[in-house]
């Protein structure tokens, strides 16, 4: 009977372990209530916001904190909805899980260098844009590369399946494309010359170029060859929430909080705050 006891103990231990772990992870599924974004912010006084974790200057997780322009914009939106910055639950998103996260209610909002486009509009609603970025190239400070037309035969690094990567493939098929799962892996390669350029939105590139360890080594070419309006993603049917977010953005453009958000993050590189063009805000799908 000794054997049976050993097995029984093992099974019991396995089950307890399993259940302990189940109990520990219930907090991941705080879906938004039926009343939409505004309703949830009012009743629960907290929000789950999806942001990037590995994009310096925009959304970077430094230990337990997140910092960057997207984070500051998120705080402005939350404040406008009556939620304290301390009650925001940040959730790391990567490029290809933003739509599912919104659709499934894993997050209430996505503010993660999220370009508004027609394909995405079919799945989610967009407020904003709060910033207009453009695809550009990051090259070594002494590089002669002047723009995408000079990329033939050169190696460009980007993220697997991302819009910038696809644009290079279709518009500049002679460029060699090295793809990774995150831009942070492209930078050491640019540093030691294994790739000639890194391509994505100029604002993201500027964030990397401004990091301490790369200071002075890289430059953004400065000839954007696309227009990427960054929006704030939320549920497709939440028109009221979207309109409220646009109102908050309009107010932030007027009272200087938008400029302050820029100055405390990306503005540190010396670039002046952009003008938030409130006439270009989305109509929230109507």
């Amino acid at each position, binding site marked *: 009977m000794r054997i049976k006891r050993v097995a029984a103990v093992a099974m019991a231990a396995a089950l307890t372990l399993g259940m302990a772990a189940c109990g520990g992870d219930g907090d991941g599924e705080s879906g938004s209530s039926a009343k939409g974004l505004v309703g949830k912010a009012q009743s629960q006084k907290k929000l789950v916001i999806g942001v990037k974790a590995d994009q310096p200057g925009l959304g970077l997780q430094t230990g337990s904190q997140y910092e960057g322009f997207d984070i500051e914009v998120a705080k402005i939106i939350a404040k406008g909805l009556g939620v304290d910055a301390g009650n925001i639950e940040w959730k790391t998103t*990567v490029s290809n899980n933003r739509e599912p996260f919104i659709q499934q209610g*894993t997050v209430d909002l996505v503010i993660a260098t999220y370009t508004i486009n027609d394909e995405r509009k079919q799945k989610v609603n967009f407020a904003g844009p709060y910033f207009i970025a453009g695809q550009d190239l990051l090259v070594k400070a002494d590089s002669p590369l002047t723009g995408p037309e000079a990329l033939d035969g050169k190696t460009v690094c980007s993220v697997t399946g991302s819009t910038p990567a696809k644009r290079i493939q279709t518009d500049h098929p002679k460029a060699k494309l090295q793809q990774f799962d995150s831009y942070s892996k492209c930078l050491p390669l640019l540093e030691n010359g294994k790739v000639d350029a890194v391509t994505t939105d100029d604002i993201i590139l500027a964030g990397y170029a401004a990091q301490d360890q790369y200071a002075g080594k890289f430059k953004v070419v400065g000839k954007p060859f696309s227009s990427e309006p960054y929006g704030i993603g939320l549920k497709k049917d939440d028109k009221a929430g979207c309109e409220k977010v646009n109102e908050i953005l309009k107010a932030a453009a007027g009272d200087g909080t938008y400029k302050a958000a820029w100055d405390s993050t990306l503005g540190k590189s010396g670039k002046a705050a952009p003008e938030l063009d409130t006439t270009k805000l989305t109509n929230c799908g109507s």
Partner: protein
Amino acid sequence: MSSSVLYDHPGPRARVRNAVLSVIFGVGVVVLLWWIYRRFDEAGQWEARLWKPFAEAKTWTEFILPALWQTLIAAATGMALSLAFGIVFAVGRLSDRWWLRVPAGVVVEFFRAVPLLLMIFFILYGVPFLIQGPVPAFWAVVVGLTLYNGSVLAEAFRAGIRSIPAGQSEAAYAVGMRKSQVMQLILVPQAARAMLPVIVSQLVVLLKDTALGYIVAYPELLQRGVNDLSANYGNVVAAAIVVAAIYIAINSLITLLANWLDRRSQRRAFRVARRSAAPAAEQTVVEPQG
């Protein structure tokens, strides 16, 4: 068979030859390592700024240790669920009823044949469309690990149960037990005991596979320790070396445990162990997932 039976006890000439070979290969290995060290040096990979973050408490308390905890909790949960899955499906495949045996066989064969990377990806992005609700990254990883490792364990259990001498179940039937009783009281406990080393070494596989969680941004060791850490400090290679060392240390400990369990069960001359331990030892190496 110990390796020493493959060659004679070395005489004076053989000893000299072995010593010479040792020196030649030893020098070769040292030269290779030194060359790698120099090339890394030339590339500036040993620069203090890349390694300094690892001397700071924040790197450990906010990146590596929480990430390690996430890795371990995913592996532990996955292991517990895999065990249950493995036992259920092993028994299912041994059932006398075809409508249990066939589906169990299909499930086990299918999940053993599908790469974990595809599975995890599908669970995170595909399953939500089916259940109309979100799947947290944690569960995408754990369920993926469970389906794959559970299927591997199911096959190991099945082999273990079948390796138990027929006399055991015959005797049990003779004293009037039903099939389910024979399974529960006689076969599964003995098989589980004999399979303990396999189970523990499958834990190594499982722990390594949690690394795939980084593709769905599950904050485990590879995601936080390499990706996010290097986004902060720009030290991809250094971070990868540190993280690899952590994986190797933990997995080596688990392997030691598996070997110790293996030796112990053999030393006790457990009746089934002698016969099933040989396939068991092979099982420890046959399923090298990522």
